[in-house]
């Protein structure tokens, strides 16, 4: 290649779209409350999601108290246990992870990484957050209505979810469904913004194949979410009709509380299909941003280009597309026509191929790297380890025959927590340690970060790895207590107590992280504009933290892909995307560093 770098050229095409007019508010309220700045909205999303996530964390500890030490705590009865199960799952998957990755990281990083001044539609972006906040408040209101929140399990399967006798079937389930509807409306506003911004508002020279994988991951996840959430919206509205108007979308002829329920002809399986048509892509709505972000963390801190960038992009696209044709693998034992098993087992295992490619490429990015073991890098490595574990256990559950003995056991709990709870959360932590300096201008404390890392990584593994083995023994999930069951050995109770202790340690350690966030905001070391010596545009802003409009007077022009780390011949081991080839500082004798 004539130019230095992988795809660097001196020419950048002229802008096709004029620059947007931003509203620059003067008041505190305009800047920080009713803000239209994507970065402020991102932080609003982040704080709200974290706050509700802490509620979900507390609920998980309620469950662990009961499972570890059954019938010890008078406040935990079967109803409150199931309510904790339900709210924990729903909050973590939708209100925390989805909101944090897309509303939080999406809002902060998409405009910055694309070289845009803001999201394409800032006003709608602002509305998106406030509707999200409203949906969270509706959900929380469920704790305060008579009967409390729903206890139907986070999947809200009918008929149980709206049958009398189920915890929260009076008011909690209604609030939950309405809250989900608002969440989806709010998300759609944000999601359209992210998609349009990525497609239309990239700066000069920022071709799609030069985008950092973070943007690719969030972009594809948003596309998935825009296509998948409507299925949940429809399901929620139909269930509301069944509950409030006495329709029978999902309710067949059946008994409720010992008497005739008065429904006729509905199909509980229809709900499951709608739910998982949303629910499976949802896994990737959470996973794809994590995939993208971790790719950038690895490249930056290993000082090496991401290995196989094009493959990585196509793998994201392929996973996104395939994620729409695998949903019924959640339903192998649901009573649907068992012949579906052949189709869905095949599609499900096919999706493992692009996923495996991503794993290889992450590991190969480390190979021949120059790895700086920073706190974000620790989390990125822990992510790979955890994700490989969770991905491989998915091969059990995705393969229809293997799934049958294991479904509805603790194997499933172990699997999905590894793959879509711990793995993405490790990326969230890594990402926060990585971008906090840009967001606040200060570094997070390293020692506290390491403590947080080690306890979280080792602790979560101690929690979830043994669960797979409880699953082999057939220990069923969503049980309030195991009582006298001959095939469940006594040692299961001992293990459960151990898991609960680990869960408490991990839970409390998150306070160290919160403390670090607060302490470093005031006392952290000054970060400077580009503490990690990264190539992507968010690190090249004229101000840190970036001001409204992101890039000062002039938008950056992009001349190269996002991964020009350790380019042979260049003096520095990174070349930012906005440095034209002719301005790269060279060392005198290229070739000296060709191969380490």
């Amino acid at each position, binding site marked *: 290649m004539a130019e230095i770098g992988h795809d660097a050229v001196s020419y950048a095409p002229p802008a096709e779209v004029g620059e947007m007019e931003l509203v620059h508010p003067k008041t505190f309220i305009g800047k920080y409350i009713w803000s239209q700045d994507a970065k402020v909205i991102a932080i609003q999303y982040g704080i709200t999601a974290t706050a509700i996530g802490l509620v979900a964390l507390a609920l998980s500890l309620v469950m662990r108290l009961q499972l570890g030490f059954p019938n010890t705590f*008078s406040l935990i009865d079967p109803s409150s246990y199931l309510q904790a199960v339900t709210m924990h799952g729903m909050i973590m998957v939708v209100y925390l992870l989805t909101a944090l990755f897309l509303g939080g990281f999406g809002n902060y990083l998409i405009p910055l990484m694309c070289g845009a001044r803001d999201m394409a539609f800032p006003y709608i972006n602002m509305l998106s957050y406030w509707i999200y906040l409203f949906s969270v408040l509706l959900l929380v209101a469920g704790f305060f209505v008579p009967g409390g929140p729903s206890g139907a399990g986070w999947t809200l399967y009918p008929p149980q979810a709206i049958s009398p006798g189920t915890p929260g079937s009076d008011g909690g389930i209604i609030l939950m469904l309405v809250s989900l509807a608002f969440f989806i409306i709010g998300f759609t506003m944000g999601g359209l913004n992210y998609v349009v911004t990525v497609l239309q508002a990239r700066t000069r020279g920022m071709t799609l194949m030069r985008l950092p994988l973070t943007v690719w991951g969030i972009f594809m996840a948003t596309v998935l979410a825009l296509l998948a959430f409507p299925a949940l919206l429809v399901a929620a509205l139909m269930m509301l009709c069944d509950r409030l108007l006495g329709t029978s979308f999902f309710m067949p002829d059946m008994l409720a509380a010992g*008497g005739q329920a008065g429904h006729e002809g509905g199909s509980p399986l229809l709900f499951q299909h709608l739910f998982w048509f949303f629910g499976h892509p949802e896994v990737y709505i959470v996973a794809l941003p994590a995939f993208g972000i971790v790719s950038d963390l690895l490249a930056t801190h290993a000082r090496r280009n991401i290995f196989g960038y094009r493959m990585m992009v196509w793998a994201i696209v392929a996973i996104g597309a395939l994620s729409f044709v695998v949903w019924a693998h959640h339903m192998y034992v649901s009573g649907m026509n068992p012949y579906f098993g052949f189709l869905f087992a095949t599609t499900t295992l096919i999706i493992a191929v692009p996923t495996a490619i991503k794993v290889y490429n992450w590991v190969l990015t480390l190979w021949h790297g120059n790895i700086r073991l920073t706190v974000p890098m620790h989390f990125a490595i822990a992510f790979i380890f955890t994700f490989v574990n969770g991905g491989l256990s998915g091969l059990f559950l995705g393969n229809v025959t293997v799934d049958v003995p294991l479904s509805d056991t603790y194997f499933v709990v172990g699997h999905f927590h590894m793959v879509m709870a711990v793995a993405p959360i490790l990326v969230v932590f890594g990402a926060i340690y990585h971008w906090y300096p840009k967001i606040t201008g200060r570094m997070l404390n390293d020692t506290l970060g390491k403590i947080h890392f080690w306890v979280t990584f080792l602790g979560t593994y101690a929690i979830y790895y043994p669960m797979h083995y409880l699953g082999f023994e057939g220990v069923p999930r969503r049980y309030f207590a195991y009582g006298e069951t001959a095939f469940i050995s006594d040692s299961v109770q001992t293990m459960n107590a151990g898991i609960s202790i680990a869960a408490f340690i991990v839970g409390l350690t998150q306070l160290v992280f919160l403390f670090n966030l607060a302490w470093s905001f005031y006392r952290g070391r000054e970060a400077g504009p580009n503490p990690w010596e990264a190539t992507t545009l968010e690190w090249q802003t004229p101000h840190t933290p970036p001001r409204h409009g992101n890039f000062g007077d002039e938008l950056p022009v992009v001349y190269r892909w996002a991964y020009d780390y350790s380019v042979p011949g260049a003096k520095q081991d990174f070349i930012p995307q906005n440095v034209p080839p002719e301005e790269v500082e060279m060392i005198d004798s290229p070739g000296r560093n060709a191969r380490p």
Partner: protein
Amino acid sequence: MAVAIALIALLLGSVVFHFLSPWNLTPLASNWGSMDDTISITLWVTGSVFVAVNLFMAYAIIRYRYKRNRRSLYEPENKKLEIWLTALTTVGIATLLAPGLFVWGSFVTVPDDAHEIEVVGQQWHWSFRFPGNDGELGAIHARLVSNDNPFGMDPDDPNGQDDVLIHSPKVQLPVNQPVKVLLRSKDVLHNFQVAQFRAKMDLVPGQVSYLWLTPTRTGKFEILCAELCGIAHFAMRGMVEVVEQAEFDVWLAQQPTYAEISAQKPGDPTVGQGLFATCAGCHGPEGQGNPGLNAPKIAGLEAWYLVRQLQNFKAGARGAHPDDQYGQQMKPFAGMLADRDAMADVAAYVQTLSAKPADRTVSGDTGRGARIYRTCSACHGADGQGVQALNAPRLAGMSDWYQVRQLRNFKQGIRGRHPDDIYGAQMAEMAKTLIDDEAIASVTAYIHTLPRATQTTMVSKLAEKN
């Protein structure tokens, strides 16, 4: 460095844990050994990949740790390597998928010689139906389900007349005979899980799902519900006993058919009155109970509950525990009733007695009791009237001191632990949620505040709606 060492330690730990783990697949009791084989294949393939990928990563972290004067290799892609890795992965995936699909092929193909059994689920009970001599299950409909027709049998369908109805969570299956298990639910989703059989499937209201298996060894195997079905999900237990064909035939012949059950005469209170004279000695002429003699109030209890408890006492499913001294006293009296008809007669007479609420003898925190009772209300009804469809007897207005004793008995395994008392077993699980004597006193005190009769039960609300 530390992180690389931690990865290696975790890998080692995981492998050691795998081999030392006391938790393995339960000993197989069906033909689905092939499912275990697919699990083994998957375990070996994924285990090797897990170790290989992470070891490689740990090695990379050590070998390429940061050095000031080192430069990373600039290599955007390596097509050859990527194609190789993709191809290898595809082969690996196919190795896992092929046996899985192959076994699934046999799972969806029910053998022609399989006999049929229907499993019926409801909150939180199992019951069973065999097709009878004609080999055909009669028509059922959820609309027909009532206290007198818990299976929802269509009385006009001739195929149903000889259907054998097992209104109990205990069932027998013949060994080495393939069986097609038809699954049906009366209310919400359930899942028929017998860990030793491997096969499991949801019961879905409004449709019939199925699975098939061949039990391969005799023994008793627990049935658990594996699909969240409400607050007593964890207590929804049953038992399948696999026996030799001859034993099965004898057992099946003893079970009532639908026609026989329909022909059963209701109890005769006049005959019952004569038999009741014995009971009156302790329980009082009005069945009002006598705490001095440790005899609880029985007036107000439903006939179906009285009959079941009398049967339990007589058969030794209740009152046989060495620590249940009052139950032991009751046992011989139940034995004096010759058969089920005699019990039905007594029960019918008890129902004619006017039931005044028993005196209050237990005090407790009724506010706490009300919170605890939310759990109880799922079966016994919000105002403690009992719900026959859920096999839950009346609580309101009954002897509170007796309830305290029984809750303690349930909790301590004195009652409800006999293998033939499965409804008792469920209550035993629920009683454990009462963590101390104070909780028992509170909930009992609350139950005593419940009105004897109101129109606010959920059932009657629903009845009005229809």
